[in-house]
């Protein structure tokens, strides 16, 4: 029975890793097609990818959109969670429902709705429009994570600070934010990840300045190429590096 378990584990890990391993292996392919037989290794595709102005620009665009839109989503989410967890307002449940609602709607539909509105009022497709869309998808996430993290002992600490004469902004900056640090970090990095990797909103709401997933998508149109493998492997490598750094520094500390 236990042996069967290990075999199953191995088989599923094989299935899970097969495409990623193939992707990385054939990014080192010498010839022009990333299919067997493997005839590398070479780094020439990485050199080509890093020399590609369009790709590097798209990467910078993606980073900007991800970092800024996530910061805004986090700020809006934090304020809303703070406001709605502190007092029971008439319609609190409805407001929470409205804030969470975008989570259950496909990105494609959110993008289409925004595109219709932007068309109607004459806003042109741009990185800004994409960023607005990314705040829409990440705000519910930030709100839900922060709302769940706000417990009674935090409210008591805030109350104590208030009784001692702290202003609301002091309370937010000196009591609430430090107490919520793990949740804030988790919400922020999750948002950055989602925004960084988001395709359909960026595809419909950008035109000339595109983000990385959109740029990769347009590379796919020319078929299989080790260059696409190389950029995919680079994204993977960077994500893993960030993940390891976070795991070792922020979250390990937060848990202990």
């Amino acid at each position, binding site marked *: 029975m*236990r042996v069967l378990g290990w075999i*199953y*584990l191995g088989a*599923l*890990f094989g*299935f*899970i890793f*097969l*495409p*990623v391993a*193939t992707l990385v292996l*054939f990014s080192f392919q010498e010839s022009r097609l990333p*299919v*067997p037989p493997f005839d590398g290794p070479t780094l020439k595709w990485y050199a080509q990818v890093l020399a590609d102005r369009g790709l590097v620009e798209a990467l910078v665009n993606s980073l900007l959109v991800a970092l800024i839109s996530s910061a805004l989503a986090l700020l*809006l*989410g934090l304020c*809303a969670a703070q*406001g*709605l967890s*502190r*007092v*029971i*307002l008439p319609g609190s449940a409805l*407001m929470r429902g*409205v*804030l*969470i*609602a*975008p*989570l*259950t*709607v*496909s990105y*494609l*539909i*959110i993008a*289409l*709705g925004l595109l*219709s*509105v932007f068309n109607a009022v004459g806003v042109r497709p741009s990185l800004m429009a994409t960023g607005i869309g990314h705040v*829409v998808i990440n*705000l*519910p996430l930030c709100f839900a994570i922060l709302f*769940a993290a706000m417990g009674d002992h935090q*409210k*008591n600490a805030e*109350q104590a600070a208030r009784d001692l004469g702290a202003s609301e902004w002091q309370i937010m900056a000196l009591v609430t934010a430090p107490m919520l640090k793990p949740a804030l970090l988790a919400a922020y990095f999750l948002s950055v990840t989602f925004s960084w*990797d988001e*395709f*359909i909103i960026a595809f*419909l709401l950008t035109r000339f300045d595109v983000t990385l*997933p959109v740029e*990769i998508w347009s590379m796919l149109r020319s078929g*299989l190429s080790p260059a696409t493998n190389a*950029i*995919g492997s680079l994204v*993977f490598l960077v*994500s*893993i590096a960030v*993940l390891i750094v976070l795991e070792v520094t922020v979250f390990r500390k937060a848990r202990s």
Partner: protein
Amino acid sequence: MIGSGPSTGPGLSPANMSIERHERRYGLALALPALGWTVAFFLLPFIVMLVLSFAHLEGREVVQGFDTGNYQRIFTEPSLLKGIRVSLEITLVVTILSVILAWPLAWIIAMQVPPRWQRLALMLAVLPFWTSYVVRSYSWALVLGESGVMMQALIGIGALDAPVQIMATRAATIIGFVHFFVMLLTLTIYSNLVQLSPNYARAAADLGASGWATLRLIIIPLTLPGIMTGAFLTFVLCIGDYITPQILGGNNELTMPQLIMLQLGRRGDFPMASALSIVLMALVTLAYAATARWLKMDRL
């Protein structure tokens, strides 16, 4: 929430009431920016889309009105009706297959892998999450293509004489989806499994249940919340995804998101694209209604 802050003090002196009013105004003021954002960039666009879905196209002009023609076409025109069927079939197969594959994996990681290695095993199980979504679908195209790794390996060991076409078929779409959602479901089911007390299984064994009966009658029912949360997420993400069917499934049979994109791209038919989106949302709402009693979305 009750029992904290001054708002619930026993005596409603004028001072208390004014503090309470102040608190409420402050709470509302904090929530307003986020609510405003969601209303302006989510609810309003949704209403615009709903209104648009009752418009129609004349030439390239959108003519507003109350015209149910788009919806009638969706449910009568074979190509559109087929899109709904294809999307539902793919989504249901993917959801069921992913649960069947992910449950044992989550169980093995939770019960058989030594505790100190569990976190590592789980992180490895979801490692490919960290490639970009577009690239992940592309990687499956590398694996499944006629000259790809899998076909070459199968021919190499003599299991096949000639490559079989998987790319640009429904099978490729399903494989790509299952790969992604097995990772997702392993997470939700694992987090459910580790919260279960081992006493349930011990009690069942004491009462004479076999291992299989314990699993079937005790453990699996207790993981239903994890299964259903994951299954609902799978349904929502799968039925609304454009990338995977477009890269792996090709254009032979179109899913609803592909049809929506086709309406936008070919003729700029926003009304029809909106109507299809509304139908897509209705399907998600049905899935929500079916799984709602197990979902803990608010505890995310």
